[in-house]
Structures are given as structure tokens and as C-alpha cells.
């Protein structure tokens, strides 16, 4: 497949649309920009779908329709993340990006990653972001657009940034549409092979019951739906613990370092902080006085 010029045209039109949607001092044509962006994405998909070999996509035809839905949601939401002038709304749109890309993972049959991403990103990381946004919000009426800080209202160098983004996207898309073939050497062993060699006692009665004795009061474990097949979670777990044990340990060390580092950073004393914010000081004092009484 040659690199079609249509890809570059579409990403250029999309970039112009994004430029119009960016909050700027001049030329705020959000609706026209959204229209251009949607046209670019739709045109690109229309162009690409001519070549789709329906019936042998590798995923079922029915589930590939969901690719279009989730992909459109994630791209629209990510545009809203970078064009929204209110940080809290931008963070909420990012939750949408996470949910939509979890949908894309489901289309590809990666259930474990899909739900892990929802729980960790949508649950834990985004809650941290919301907490900090609330902690660090400036005073003022959130409904009044004049009370939004200039840093949030005006995009910084939108033309240059979008030109850089366009170049990056062109390079990435050129590579994405290069002819590729799956590497047969990279293909993981089949479910049957793994069950025979590594998990030979997988369908046997649960090990815990034999260890604890027959009369132990253990909850009943439902039988495997298909003992000849491994679920996605089992495959990921096997790969994680069999092929990447060092990476797993390093990940644990990094998390521990981040934990200690975050505590150290949070406990750092800031010089002159109390004088900067007299109002917070007085509230604090009042609270302490009440406790003393």
C-alpha cells in the first residue's frame, strides 16, 4: 500500500479545524473548526474503509462497527480536553477519552487491560487530578468567563504547536500505513500448548481444597467454561510473571519511590506561605480555637 496523499490532506484539514477550535484572542470559529475536524476524520475513514477486507478483519464485522463509535468518541473528547477553557471540565472529558479507549481495547479482545484502564485511570488517577484541581483552584465565580485565568483562556502559540502536531501526525500515519505482516516468530504459543506444558493441572480440582483437606469449608469454585481455552486475563498474567519478572519488580520499586517522593514533596515547607493567604490562616486559627474550647 502506497502512502496516499489523502492522509496528509485529511490531517491538514483536521489541523486547520483544530486551530479554529483553539481558544485564541483572534478568530474564534469553534463551530466551523469542529465541522472541518469532523469532515477530515470522516473523509479519512471513508477513504480507508474502501480497502477494508470485510469478513476477514481479524475481529468480527459487527464489533468493528464499535471501533468507529469508540474512536470517534475518544477523538472528540480529546479535542475537548485541549480546547476547553475550564480545567475541571477538561479533566472530565479526559475520563471520556479513557472510557472510549477502553472500548477500543474490548474490540481488540483485551478485556483485562480495558477494565484495568477504567479502574486505574478513570478511577484512581483522575480522582487525584480532580483533587488537585479543586485544591489549587483560584477564587472567583466559576460561571463567569472573566474569572477564568488568562492561562486557561488563551492558547499559547497555537499555530506553531499545531504545525508541530501536524508534522508528527503525518509521520506517524505514514508509518501506520506502511505494508506490514505479522511476525510469525513473535506469535505466542497456542492455548493448548500452554495448558499442556505449563498449566497441566489447570482443570483439576482446586489446589487449595486438597491442601486444606476435604472437610474444609471452602466456597465452591465454578467449573471452567471451556477447559481448552485460556482467558485474556490468564494470558496477560502468564506473560507478566513468566516473561517480565524483572519489569514487575522494577515497577514495584518505581511505585515505592513515587510514594516516598510524593510524601517528601508534600511535606516541604514553603517560605512565607502563611502571609500569602491570610484568609486561610484565620480559618485555621478559628478551627483550632474551637477545638481548644
Amino acid at each position, binding site marked *: 500500500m502506497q502512502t496516499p496523499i489523502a492522509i496528509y490532506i485529511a490531517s491538514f484539514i483536521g489541523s486547520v479545524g483544530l486551530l479554529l477550535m483553539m481558544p485564541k484572542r483572534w478568530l474564534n470559529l469553534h463551530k466551523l473548526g469542529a465541522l472541518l475536524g469532523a469532515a477530515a476524520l470522516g473523509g*479519512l475513514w471513508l477513504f*480507508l474503509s474502501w480497502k*477494508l*477486507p470485510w469478513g*476477514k*478483519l*481479524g*475481529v468480527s464485522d459487527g464489533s468493528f462497527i464499535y*471501533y468507529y463509535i469508540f*474512536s470517534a468518541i*475518544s*477523538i472528540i473528547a*480529546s479535542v475537548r*480536553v*485541549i480546547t476547553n477553557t475550564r*480545567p475541571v471540565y477538561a479533566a472530565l472529558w*479526559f475520563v471520556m477519552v479513557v472510557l472510549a479507549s477502553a472500548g*477500543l*481495547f474490548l474490540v*481488540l*479482545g483485551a478485556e*483485562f*487491560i480495558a477494565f*484495568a*484502564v477504567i479502574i486505574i*485511570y478513570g478511577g484512581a*488517577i483522575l480522582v*487525584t487530578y480532580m483533587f488537585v*484541581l479543586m*485544591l*489549587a483552584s483560584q477564587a472567583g465565580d466559576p460561571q463567569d468567563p472573566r474569572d477564568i*485565568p488568562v*492561562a*486557561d483562556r488563551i*492558547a*499559547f502559540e497555537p499555530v*506553531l*504547536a*499545531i504545525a*508541530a*502536531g501536524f508534522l*508528527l*501526525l503525518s509521520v*506517524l*500515519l505514514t508509518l501506520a*500505513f506502511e505494508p*506490514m505482516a*505479522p511476525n510469525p516468530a*513473535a506469535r505466542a504459543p497456542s492455548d493448548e500448548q500452554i495448558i499442556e506444558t505449563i498449566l497441566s493441572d489447570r482443570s483439576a480440582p482446586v489446589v487449595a481444597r486438597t491442601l486444606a483437606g476435604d472437610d474444609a469449608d471452602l466456597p465452591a469454585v465454578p467449573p471452567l467454561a471451556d477447559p481448552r481455552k485460556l482467558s485474556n486475563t490468564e*494470558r*496477560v498474567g502468564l*506473560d507478566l510473571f513468566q516473561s*517480565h519478572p524483572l*519489569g514487575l519488580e522494577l515497577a514495584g520499586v*518505581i511505585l515505592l519511590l*513515587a510514594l516516598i*517522593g510524593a510524601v517528601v*514533596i*508534600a511535606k516541604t515547607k*514553603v517560605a512565607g506561605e502563611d502571609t500569602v493567604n491570610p484568609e486561610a490562616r484565620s480559618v485555621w486559627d478559628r478551627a483550632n480555637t474551637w477545638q481548644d474550647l
Partner: protein
Amino acid sequence: MTGPIDQITLAHFLLTGAVLFALGVVGFLTRRNLIIMFLCTEMMFQGVAVSLVGFSAFHVNVTGQTFVIFVLTIAAAEAALALGLVVLLFRRKRTLDAEAWAGMKG
């Protein structure tokens, strides 16, 4: 795992991943709010994750999905550290504007 996905199917997922990554870069360069800048790096992680899972389905090997777990780990560590730093910076200058910290410019 089923058989490999088709090359053009893969290209569709790579397209979404590339667009998410490029939008994250543009957001990182244009937004001046420290928290939103870090949010945009998380968006780049999402784009990479979509590409990794796509390649994992293309080569019929779950290592791509395992790498997404590592990406999640790094994202969590980065969020904890970066947000701690952002709160520290906010306590000093009472603003989230990255321009307020341009004093180190040469």
C-alpha cells in the same frame, strides 16, 4: 487469543492512537495550566496504549498488553509526583500558570 487481525484493521487502530498522541502533544504545547499539561501527557500514554494493544492483536502476542500495565504503572507514579510538585508550586505563587515560572529562562 484468536488469529491475527488484518493489516488495515491494525492501521485503523494505529490511526486512533496516532491522533490521540498528536492531540496530546498539541495540548501540552498550547495549554499553560500546569495540571492540564500533565493531563495531556496522560493522553499521549492513552494513544500509545491503543497502539500497543493493536500490535498485540496483530502479532498474536500478549506482551503488548503487558506493556500497557507498565505504562499504567508509570502513569500512576508520574501523576503522584507531578501533582505533588504542582501543589508545591501553587503554594508558592498561588497560580497554576506555567508562565509564572519563566524566571529560569536564560
